[in-house]
């Protein structure tokens, strides 16, 4: 864990459960308003405003609602939730309880990535000790009617289960596959009940928003992307690790911090993100610029970008849930295209066809997986066309 910034929100020293204690004294609507005014957006990658999501879930008419903590951290190059859950589990559970109070849910579920099985016992211990301290369970902090329990549910290794509707399918015991939307989970989710699915980091930040106040939170970072963000930095850099930076930090500033100044490109947002070439390193890491759920992969000057693209496409070819045509079949076709490029036998017109196919996948796939899977391929082809085409007809 590397903390390089003094404006840390998540990892700065703070009084335990400050947010939860404040939330107990607040009206439900005021909690949601605070989260909305903080400008907090989902940290899983999609960047949906958290306050809006909570409001939808709060407005949904049902006696049973759920808060789900999406801990299916599966994006290649992402490992920040792992750090949060092992070092700041209390903060995450605090955020879940606040979310439960805000939307009127009495049950929370942590959907934990299958590969994180080693953390399960730790999490369950934290849950138990919080229950003993009346920070979970019935009448939390003595507030009558504020009941909220949390259990851990293990995933089984499917990347697509990070998509919230596929996650819910998996929770229900089905094959993890995205549902048709609308309706959205905030309306019809787990077992048909309104379900608020938030990323681990989002929930932890929400607890901090309540503790610090919306204004203090919103002061950090640009208006479009308030607060700090955890970045999982890996690849060709001197100091890989998890960093907390204010939103809006430029790629070059980040590279300087992690010792990756020599990079020729950076993959922002993991396999489903985009590849940013050196000439665009002034871009900022923010929702309205280079957006990421946390993954930053640094490629040094010696990296073969086509191999990078192959690596990502192999991942998607395997991890597509296989439900919709553009994703299931499109990823395979793009992977085959990379094979042709590697062999130097991909015509320019075929490459253009593959690019057009990539755009269709972005537009017509059923869920975010297929809609973002061609991003890496498309951005690498766009920015490293000369490198890629150098092999053709050689």
């Amino acid at each position, binding site marked *: 864990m590397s903390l390089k910034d003094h404006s840390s929100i998540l990892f700065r020293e703070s009084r335990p459960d400050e947010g939860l204690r404040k939330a107990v004294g607040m009206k439900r609507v005021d909690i949601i308003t605070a989260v909305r005014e903080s400008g907090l957006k989902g940290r899983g990658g999609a960047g949906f405003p958290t306050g809006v999501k909570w409001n939808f879930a709060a407005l949904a008419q049902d006696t049973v609602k759920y808060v789900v903590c999406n801990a299916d951290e599966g994006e290649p190059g992402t490992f920040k939730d792992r750090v949060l859950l092992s070092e700041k589990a209390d903060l995450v559970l605090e955020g879940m309880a606040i979310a439960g109070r805000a939307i009127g849910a009495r049950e929370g579920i942590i959907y934990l990535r299958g590969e994180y099985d080693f953390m399960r016992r730790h999490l369950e211990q934290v849950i138990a000790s919080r229950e003993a301290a009346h920070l979970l369970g019935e009448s939390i902090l003595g507030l009558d009617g504020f009941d909220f329990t949390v259990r851990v549910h293990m995933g089984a290794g499917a990347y697509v289960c990070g998509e919230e509707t596929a996650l819910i399918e998996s929770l229900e015991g089905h094959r993890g596959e995205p549902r048709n939307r*609308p309706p959205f989970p905030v309306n019809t989710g787990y077992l048909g009940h309104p379900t608020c699915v938030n990323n681990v980091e989002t929930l932890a930040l929400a607890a901090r928003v309540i503790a610090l106040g919306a204004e203090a939170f919103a002061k950090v970072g640009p208006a479009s992307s308030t607060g700090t963000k955890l970045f999982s930095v890996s690849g060709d850099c001197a100091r890989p690790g998890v960093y907390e930076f204010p939103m809006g930090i430029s790629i070059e500033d980040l590279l300087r911090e992690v010792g990756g100044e020599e990079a020729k490109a950076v993959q922002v947002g993991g396999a489903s993100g985009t590849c940013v070439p050196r000439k665009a390193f002034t871009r900022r890491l923010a929702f309205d610029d280079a957006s990421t759920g946390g993954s930053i992969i640094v490629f040094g000057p010696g990296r073969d970008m086509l191999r990078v693209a192959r690596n990502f496409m192999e991942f998607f070819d395997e991890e597509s849930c296989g439900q919709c045509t553009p994703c299931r079949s499109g990823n395979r076709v793009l992977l085959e295209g990379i094979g042709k490029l590697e062999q130097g036998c991909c015509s320019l017109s075929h490459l253009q066809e593959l690019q057009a196919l990539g755009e269709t996948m972005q537009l017509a796939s059923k869920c975010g997986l297929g809609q973002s899977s061609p991003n890496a391929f498309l951005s690498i082809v766009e920015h490293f066309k000369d490198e890629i085409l150098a092999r053709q007809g050689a």
Partner: protein
Amino acid sequence: MNTESRMNPDTSRAPVSQKPQVVNARADENAVGAQVRVSIDGQEIKVPLGTTILDAAKRLGVHIPTLCHHADLCSAGLCRVCVVEVEGQRALQASCAYPITSPLTIKTHTRKVRNARRHIVDLMLSEHVGECYTCSRSNNCELQSLAKEMGVVNFRFGQRTERRHQTDTSSHSVVRNMDKCVLCRRCVRTCIDLQEVGVLEACHRGSETTIETFRDKPLGEVVCINCGQCINRCPTGALRANDPTEEIWRHIDNPGKHVVIQTAPAPRAAIGECFGCAPGTPMTFEMNSALRLCGFDKVFDTNFTADLTILEEGTELLLRLHRALVQGDREAALPQFTSCSPGWVKYLEHFYPDYIPNLSSAKSPQQMFGAVIKTYYAQLHELDPKDIVTVALMPCSAKKFECNRPEMVDSGFKDVDYGLTTRELAQMFKEAGIDLPNLPHSDFDDPFGSATGSGVIFGATGGVMEAALRTVIEVVCGVQVENLFDHADIIPVRGFDGIRYVELPIREVGPVIPMFKHLVGDWDWLKGATLKVAVAHGTANAKKVMDDIKAGGRFSECHFIEFMGCPGGCIGGGGQPIPTSPEIRAARAKAIYGEDRSYKIRKSHENPAVLELYEKFLKEGPCGHLSHKLLHTHYTARGAFMA
């Protein structure tokens, strides 16, 4: 008429990812009451909240291509062929799965949409081993039509030629060639949702995704009931029926063989569709001529044994009632279940084996006919039964399994040699150059020629019940059915409601007619009783009734229940022409009831050929010694668990 329920959200076992869900729409200022405004390609319409974009477009006459969508199934929104552009949204939306809950502006054929659709069809073609020349679905293939519609002129992303799967021919009924599968999952939804059997499921991920049975076992070894509903809904040739036409031709060509065909009522109401006729165009008498042109030696009407079934099964019911009501026998196994539908029979054997005693022991009309042909008919015409080949034209794929059941050999030979579907016969006609719709009429052959309206209506859900009631009412009450129901049409048991329940009070009883004298002395014990009957079609509905019986609900009080394995009954069978839809099935049913009306004799117990059979051959009347040997059977408790 079209009240056939597609899916009950309460009991549906389909994966939620593949079902439309309840949308609790927010009130919108532009929405008037439960109506919402939508503009599609510049045309405006108001539709009820929750209507899909696809349905709204249909109302406006705007065509949107589809593939994974099917009128009988929950919408999946997974092939993505039907994508459209919704104003204000970045991504395209699948119109079949997008419920309209707020005013929308939609465009159905922008450049983005056209490109996407072309790409999607190109992708499907790239994973489909397309062998159109040798495919049973050529010219009736939705993928082929779609490729034509999208203007596909080359395989942009390649064409798969290498075979990844072995064709599964283990089932007597359904052949699976997964190399042709485009993963629309209609078969999965048909099996788990429409029929609630659940044999097929998507397995593996990404480009390795396939549709598999439990542990990828051969179809012949799993709990498949052979209903063939998946075949009827497969857009390609990945699923087809096990086709016996080559062998049938071989027998026809062999002068040493006497090849007879019996034709069930449902195919004649549907086969015209294979020749461009509208659904519901009856082809009974044209088909007789065509069968003779093909070279069949005799053409019989399965209705003959449908009438025979009514007498055997009806008598069995009266005997069970007698045991229960007079002898106080608690083991009388009521309600009695019909056993004519082999899909339903196998369903029960797998999922409710404890209720096998409730199944009528009467064979299905197909199997009764086979046994009668190889005994009575062989004697009458001095034929050696080993030289007789019996073919059964059926709307059904499960009939292929049924005729191969090892116990179906009571004549000393395989009672029925081949089950032939409507589609396969149409193909035989085409091969022989027979222009079915324009043939002269001809009648069925003797000695079974004359049939009754009761036999004909076996083809539609409720038909067996209606036929049985016509006979039971007259035999027991001693009055004409017409006195109780206009034209002897017992309307309450008809229709397409998934489950129908009818009570018939027996106010008076008549004398015992000679045919039943050997069984009962009088009917007085039925006087004042109320006959409770029910009808269920499609195994999803059968499941509801069976679960109710298990729980001791009102259906456990019934005396007689008609179950049909397929939605709509035989007219919707797995061997019928493709496509199928509630509208098409309703049109076929209309043809069936129309034919019923045209018969002079409409009650099974008045069928002179049946009476003659009892008199000359079976001797002892219904449920007598020889009847039991030839016309009744037993069942196998199979259970639902596989090793």
